[in-house]
């Protein structure tokens, strides 16, 4: 599924300074029963966001109107656990286009890149600076510049470069996905297959 392209994102951010946020928290398994990619944002962080009677938990950051924006900032090892792409869909569907952390779990990171959510890995020190800045001054904007591979705190100018695979970067800039690419080389895949026994 192709998605919107990503260039420069300037937005306020939502801080979630918890480590090892796993995909069961991002979207619990009982919400994986859909057969279409729709409505997962409603259940993003379901059990941290709502009590069992569906009343919002006022102490959870997504229920705090002070914090909003298209960037989610999470603690070390964000997205660990299950391979469910529903976690990345939930993040996207809620309205986030970028997740910042000091470390990402592998499959979650891949899933994000495949659907148009940019995972930005920064140093633990810079992550702390971001947390401190946006927690104390929630209107602070972050500027995520994909062409330059740079993330900046707008108010202070503090910034850091980030890594991204050049192929994935090209895809994100254009809103392409891997199937577009693989489909174009199907004849080469065919030749390989003929030489590969079942």
């Amino acid at each position: 599924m192709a998605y919107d392209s990503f260039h420069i994102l300037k937005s306020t951010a939502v801080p979630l300074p918890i480590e090892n946020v796993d995909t069961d928290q991002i979207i619990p398994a009982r919400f994986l029963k859909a057969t279409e990619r729709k409505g997962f944002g409603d259940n993003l962080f379901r059990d941290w966001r709502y009590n069992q009677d569906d009343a919002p938990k006022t102490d959870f950051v997504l229920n705090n109107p002070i914090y909003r924006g298209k960037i989610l900032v999470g603690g070390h090892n964000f997205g660990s656990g299950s391979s469910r792409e529903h976690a990345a869909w939930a993040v996207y569907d809620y309205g986030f286009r970028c997740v910042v952390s000091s470390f990402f779990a592998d499959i979650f990171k891949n899933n994000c890149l495949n659907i148009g959510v940019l995972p930005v890995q920064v140093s633990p020190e810079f992550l702390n600076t971001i947390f401190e800045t946006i927690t104390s001054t929630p209107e602070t904007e972050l500027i995520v510049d994909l062409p330059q591979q740079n993330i900046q705190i707008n108010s202070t100018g503090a910034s850091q470069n980030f890594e991204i695979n050049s192929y994935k970067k090209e895809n994100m800039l254009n809103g392409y996905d891997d199937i577009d690419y693989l489909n174009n080389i199907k004849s080469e895949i065919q030749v390989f297959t003929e030489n590969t026994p079942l």
Partner: protein
Amino acid sequence: MLFIDRHMVHEVTSPVAFLGLKNRKLPVLHPERTFATADHNTPTINQHLPVADPLSRNQLKALEENAKTHGISYWGLGHKKNGIVHVVGPEYGITQPGATIVCGDSHTSTHGAFGAIAFGIGTSEVEMVLATQCIMQPKPKKMRITIDGKLNHGVTPKDVALFIISKLTTSGATGYFVEYAGEVFRDLSMEGRMTVCNLSIEMGARGGMIAPDEKTFDYIKGREYTPQGVYWDKAMGYWETLYTDEGAYFDKELSFHGSEIDPMITFGTNPGMGMSITKAIPKAEEVEGGAATYAKSLAYMGYEEGESMIGKPIDYVFIGSCTNGRIEDFRAFAEIVKNKKRAENVTAWLVPGSHKVLNAIKDEGLFEIFEKAGFQLREPGCSACLAMNDDKIPAGKYAVSTSNRNFEGRQGPGARTLLASPLVAAAAAITGKITDPRTLI
């Protein structure tokens, strides 16, 4: 870019991928390399009746229809080959050394026990593989974990894995594929190796593998999808070359000794928060990571730093899952519960990983042992491991579980999971509290 030899598909992570194919008007390129089974969402009682939950029923129906449309073999609910995807793959010989195997499930690492390159993928990647039989991946780094020596009595493959994860943390192997080497892994049965490789993802590794040897070849020989006759000989010629060369380079090497490992149990909300069952819950300053996250985790579990785990009361026991839902796991459980009685405060769910496992439980007389001890057997599926079906641990209750994840709410909203081996689970089921299984063997 990798060509994928075997693609396993289940009902939860595939429907959106099939929808993507439909929207792009693409066929499944190699249905003969694609295998579908229903497991995550299926009930574990009354499987002969229509599935009660409409959403689950709809998802199962979608897989059945997608499989039919694209000519994919489908082992649905009630099919005699049905079971958890990572249990049935090896059972029928679909899993083979050197093969590239993917599935939209992180525990695909299980198949690495056969020396396969096996890893979990997301739904967009499922669509890629359905459409092109290929997948693009960054090349992982290489880690080798060597454990020599012998395991102590009462120490199982699950304990070995939980021990390693407790040393590495849940992110210690992120970005790596792991080879498990040394006497301990060579001594393990194929099922034990599957348990270890299964849990590779819990330390962040996409895949884990063990070099194939005589045990591997003996296991796969003669299974339905295993090559026969001259094809077997040809395959063996290749499989026998699949070991790590002397002096091969690894980005990271770790080694431990088998005698260091005790029966393990987790006390927190990720699989890295495990320890010897005889130890006390560590203090915040003794663990890696932030104190706030640690405090949140212990508060969720209702535990305090410095407490001993032995003797803590429990409410539920779950034996099953792609981690510990094979016949050897049920034999281990039976070894402890034989001629004893289930503790009255314990609800136990015994869920075989497949029909083949279920049949073996009956054939070997384990069924009678369980019944006599007050345990009932359910029908195969993922069940309470991720609680997508009705097998949910109630909020606040403690479950000793042989599954793979103790995340908050994993086994039901508010449920508290203690990961452990089938022996530890059996000891808890009999005594109603956390008990060192070595006192009962």
